[in-house]
């Protein structure tokens, strides 16, 4: 067509520059975290900080990626995988273990055993929920989400109940695990978590290229030849497993996903889920490492990290709701 001459220029801005900016910011923050106030004790400081930086990078990436996947499947940019109640289940498991076995039992005090136990229980719950409410003829993702919300509230109430019954000294242990923290990560936890994350991502990777089409909605995806049911099933299970690993590693922090996913949507002028996942993953690293730096050097551990993150996330959430409302 001769219409080419009259074509308005593409409205899209480049995505590689903001991604490069995010990557630089992430690297600088990690570098800063590693060296700040080291007082020359490199042999002592670096390995310990590297483990925590690794844990922050791992959970930042996992939360960013899984939120973008989850929001693409549910076609909703104000949901996070946290809606499924996995983080509440985590608190319930910890409370139940400490209440029934006591805090000195190896299932509680051995962090690695505790980690594997929590991951396993959350994975079983997620897959069972999925099997019960998403498989079968009348698969409806919103019914499954609703059941997840209700189950999460139930877990919350049960955990509160156990906390009331528990010995006050034991309660302190639970309380320390109710908030996400990077201060108790060890190499022994980081490796299994990293390996599980890589395994889940590798399992989901072939399906990730359908994500752009899945985000168009079921009808378009089916018309374009995607096995919608199968692809959504695999990606949802992957998201649940990723969140289970991340929560068991550092504690409940999925609200972070809302911030970093929306940050990626605003910064990157694209609909393509590949760059968006990269951007959200980098954003996750920046938020966690930046938050941890603020926590250690500005607030001097006077507030837990999730309080900082939830405050920023809550403000952003309100802003998004009001903005969406204005757009109607």
């Amino acid at each position, binding site marked *: *067509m001769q*219409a*080419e001459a*009259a*074509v*308005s*220029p*593409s*409205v*899209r801005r480049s995505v590689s520059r903001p991604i490069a900016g995010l990557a630089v910011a992430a690297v600088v923050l990690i570098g800063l975290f590693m060296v700040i106030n080291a007082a020359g004790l490199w042999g002592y400081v670096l390995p310990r900080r590297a483990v925590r930086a690794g844990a922050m990078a791992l959970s930042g990436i996992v939360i960013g990626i899984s939120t973008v996947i989850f929001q693409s499947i549910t*076609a*909703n*940019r104000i949901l996070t995988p946290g809606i499924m109640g996995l983080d509440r289940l985590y608190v319930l498991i910890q409370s139940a273990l400490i209440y029934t076995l006591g805090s000195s039992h190896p299932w509680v005090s051995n962090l690695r055993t505790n980690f594997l136990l929590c991951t396993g229980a959350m994975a079983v719950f997620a897959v069972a929920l999925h099997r019960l409410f998403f498989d079968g*003829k009348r698969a409806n993702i919103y019914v499954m989400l609703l059941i997840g919300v209700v189950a999460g509230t139930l877990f919350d109430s049960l955990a509160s109940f156990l906390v009331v019954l528990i010995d006050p000294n034991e309660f302190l242990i639970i309380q320390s695990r109710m908030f996400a923290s990077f201060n108790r990560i060890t190499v022994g936890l980081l490796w299994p978590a990293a390996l599980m994350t890589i395994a889940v991502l590798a399992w989901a990777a072939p399906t990730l*290229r359908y994500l*752009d*089409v899945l*985000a*168009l*909605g*079921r*009808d*378009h995806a*089916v*018309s*374009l*030849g*995607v*096995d919608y049911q199968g692809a959504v099933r695999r990606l949802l299970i992957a998201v649940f497993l990723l969140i289970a690993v991340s929560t068991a590693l550092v504690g409940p922090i999925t609200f972070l996903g809302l911030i970093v996913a929306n940050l990626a949507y605003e910064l990157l002028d694209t*609909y393509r889920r590949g760059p968006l996942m990269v951007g959200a993953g980098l954003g996750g690293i920046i938020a966690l490492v930046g938050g941890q730096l603020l926590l250690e050097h500005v607030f001097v551990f006077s507030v837990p990290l999730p309080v900082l993150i939830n405050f920023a996330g809550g403000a952003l959430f309100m802003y998004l709701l009001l903005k969406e409302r204005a757009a109607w």
Partner: protein
Amino acid sequence: MVEAHAIVKRYGPRTVLNQVSVTVEPGQLTSFIGPNGAGKSTLLSIMTRLVPADAGEVRLDGRPLARYDSRELARRISVLRQFNHVPLRLTVRELVSFGRFPYSHGRLTKADEEAVDRALAAMELGDIQHKLLDQLSGGQRQRAFIAMVVAQETDYVFLDEPLNNVDMKHAVQVMKLLRRLVEEEGRSVVVVMHDVNLAAYYSDRVVALKEGCVAFDGPAQDMMEPAILKNVFGIDVAVGEIHSCRVCVYFAEAEQLAANGHVAQGAIAPRLK
């Protein structure tokens, strides 16, 4: 050839389709017409595997749809449903490029880009191809979605009310494009529509549904009889001829039609042909 054989679909106690059998011949433009709730959209969705049937079978060239690989099927049958809302910020060209997914899986080749260009040109979207969908008027957006299905280059194209939100000029443009797909490219097009006059003029064949059953199935011009239209839609209709097009008037009272000397209520206008 796409055949729907004895299709039954129920939603709760309501039977939406009751033993419907319809054959879509290759190289034809077929319209599904009928009152609201007659089952047109459901039939279209079942024939394009978007919705499973409770009983019956859909076959493409004699083979049941269920026995096709979904990617292979996406190169044979494409479908566009009504109420298209996409929760992404897409430009027109990006949307149309999705039509090439069954071929390229997201990495467009030169041939894919050319197919996108052809589809954009056919729907006269070339000069707004880089606009975002939410900046477009309803009619432009509708044409962008149709262009996506056109870019998919399938033998069979199913469209559910593509004339929704489209003004007279663009409705005619859409129908002409669909005719061109049939005549020049030998594709088969199935359209659910409400405008009986456009359906009669542009279709080769019309299937009228009423309460989940086929009420008429035949050449488009044969449908334009007051008795048939009254049976399908349940209102009095006058049929006349303007510039050798058969058109029907369905929006005046029966007495008015009679008083003005038009034919109504089962009478058949003389055909000039």
